[in-house]
């Protein structure tokens, strides 16, 4: 039984924590929060590229470190702790994973080294409006290799160089790799987490290369989303842990009625509840990491469970962290709301938890029939 980070992985994780504590304090995050014109922290992005993190799971042959996905999970957890304001998920969890999973040799050679070097920023453009995108309501269209249509919201759409776009081709949903250097107009969107910007992208004849087979765009998107979901679950777990730490630290230093508030059962049990949810999320995330790293057939189920547990845990931790802080907790000056916002951003960016619950149960139904 070996169901934890190895010593090497723990070392890497620890180094990542130290690096981010030095390079991504919340004062840096607030620069992106407070400045509408600033979509991400460019300096941090460069530094992270220099650390090699963008290519952690990219093979050495393509300019990456070739470490594997457990190491990437460890990094994701640390990025989540510090609510890093960079397009890491869009670029690494989605674009790089998509290219590694379904890209041609040419595409891999062209994109992966640039991703590892921080020269390419990715984004995922699937949503076109309120609610769930389906094969039936999908509007964007690719014809003759040219994409037209409107996508919103697209996280990191305002700064991305490349997009994964869900669109119809010959009436069937496909997933396309789109170079954003032309044929697209971008409009910044106002979102609930200004530390992670999003845009509306309007395509008018942008060049689009299909990934995977014709008509299998939704299936491929699910496979990519499974991979991203595991990595996002680590970011969420990291965020949830940090929220718990903040709540605990405050509860231990704040006095009410002559006692630290951490001595009241209402607070003790609240923090215990957060702890329990966080540990369940961590355990589910570990199993997702194992499935991702070994490309196990359990990945879709494991990824769904990891995403559901992590989304729930981060939301609970983020909102009860504010509650534990009392009045000061809902002020702009205190960092608690950064985690509240990020918990919502991460829960929605790859599809809402309820969508994942449905995915999970349909798979359990099939598995139970098969068993």
């Amino acid at each position, binding site marked *: 039984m070996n169901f934890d980070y190895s010593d090497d992985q723990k070392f890497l994780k620890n180094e990542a924590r130290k690096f981010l504590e030095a390079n991504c304090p919340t004062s840096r995050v607030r620069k992106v929060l407070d400045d509408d014109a600033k979509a991400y922290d460019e300096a941090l992005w460069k530094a992270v590229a220099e650390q090699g993190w963008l290519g952690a799971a990219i093979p050495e042959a393509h300019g990456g470190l070739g470490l594997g996905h457990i190491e990437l999970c460890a990094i994701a957890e640390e990025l989540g702790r510090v609510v890093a304001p960079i397009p890491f998920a869009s670029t690494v969890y989605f674009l790089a994973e998509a290219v590694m999973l379904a890209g041609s040799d040419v595409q891999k050679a062209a994109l992966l080294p640039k991703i590892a070097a921080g020269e390419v920023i990715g984004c995922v453009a*699937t*949503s076109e*409006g*309120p*609610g*769930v*995108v*389906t094969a*039936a*309501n999908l509007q964007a269209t690719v014809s003759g290799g040219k994409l037209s249509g409107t996508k*919103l*919201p697209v*996280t990191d759409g305002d700064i991305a160089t490349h997009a994964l776009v869900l669109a119809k081709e010959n009436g069937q949903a496909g997933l396309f790799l789109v170079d954003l250097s032309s044929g697209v107009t971008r409009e910044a*969107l*106002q*979102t*609930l*987490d200004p530390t992670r910007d*999003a845009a509306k992208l309007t395509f008018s004849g942008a060049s689009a290369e299909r990934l995977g087979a014709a008509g299998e765009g939704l299936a491929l998107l699910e496979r990519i989303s499974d991979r991203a979901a595991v990595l996002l679950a680590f970011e969420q777990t990291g965020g949830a842990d940090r929220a718990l730490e903040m709540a605990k630290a405050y509860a231990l*230093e*704040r*006095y*009410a*009625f*002559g*006692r*630290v508030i951490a001595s*009241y059962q*209402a*607070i003790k049990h609240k923090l215990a509840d957060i702890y329990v949810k966080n540990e369940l999320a961590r355990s589910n995330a570990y199993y997702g990491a194992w499935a991702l790293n070994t490309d196990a057939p359990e990945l879709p189920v494991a990824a769904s469970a990891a995403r559901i547990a992590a989304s729930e845990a981060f*939301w609970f931790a983020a*909102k009860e962290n*504010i*509650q534990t802080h*009392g*009045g*000061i*907790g*809902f*002020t*702009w*000056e205190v960092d*608690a*709301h950064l985690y*509240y916002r990020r918990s*919502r*951003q991460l*829960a*929605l*960016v*790859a*599809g*809402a*938890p*309820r*969508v994942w619950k*449905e995915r999970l149960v349909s798979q359990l139904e099939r598995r139970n029939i098969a068993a």
Partner: protein
Amino acid sequence: MDFNDSPEEAAYRAQVREWLEANAPKTPLTFEDMEGGGSMAASKAWQAKKAAAGYAQITWPKEWGGPGGTPIQQVIFNTEEAKYPIPPNPFQIGLGMCVPTVMTFADEDTKKRFVGPALRGEEIWCQLFSEPAGGSDVAAARTRAVRAPDGSGDWIIDGQKVWTTGAQFSSFGIVVTRTDPDAPKHKGMTMFWVDMSDPGIEVRPIHQMSGGSGFNEVFFTGVRVKDSQRLGAINDGWRVSLVTLMNERLAVGGATGAQWNQFLEAARQITGLDGAPVIKDQAIREKLADWYVQAEGLKHTRNRTMTALSRGQTPGPESSIGKVVSALQMQDLANTAVEMLDQYGIINDPDLAPLGGAFHASLMMAPGLRIAGGTDEILKNIIAERVLGLPGDIRVDKDVAFKDLPTGR
């Protein structure tokens, strides 16, 4: 069991309706109206009109300038008034809590000086109790008041208050201070009224995560007040503050933010898991049922409270459950609505988000609503202790000199 007025109530309601129809504004303020203090001017004008007609503080006795009416008359007036597009009411904390405290403890001249202008909306009052070191714990006040060294009998106040609603437009305030740090915490406080325009008082708005700034910090730096501004005896401020807090108006107000019916409307229009509208989703339907039942429960709990008032009784403890239920519902409903939008849920631009971003606004307001005016935890303590009669939490700070109490930030 019915919803009918008694004959006396019906007569009062008819009189109120007639007066409102003749006097209440018929159109909401426009954005232009509200600019440059226009909103406050409208509020003050409406308050003056109500005061002149005996509708400002209906339950106030004649000696305080009120008509000496009943609580149910106040409720009837509020209900009828709410049907008109009246301007905001920034007077409630002053009239409901501060001025009654002044009335109870001040001398005749002071009463004469303050009651009329407050009632007519000419002067607004704020309540300066909470401090950074003690939110729910009013007796943790550290703001010092010491006798001026010049022998004048004046007091010098230094310290900081926080969560002060309306401080930026208040003329006066009542402030709890620490006058004997060697006494146990409840026995060394003194209350004063202060002129908010006095030198040394600085008001700074608190920037909330929702973007709003409804609260303020108030800094006292060497603020000099006369001993005649003292309310109650020296070191008896805790008892005085209890009078203020007992005057807190009945919590008959409803929840704010987006409600179940707005959620239902939105759910009809959003694509769900299988491409059908999300309102067809049974998980969503069960949540809707739960919210509806809670909201109806609160509404009819308020009806029970009003029934008690109508019968001349003191409302039962059921009136205390409102906020603890509605604040949590607000957070859950808003979050479910945002998640129902799937990826699109991150967009909070009022031009793009459903209902002009009302769900998103609720999501950002809810954490504050769960805290302001008593946290969920404090409210449950109150229900447990005052309603159910369970013992208070064990107090370790009762018999210790204030200065020796452990403190954090």
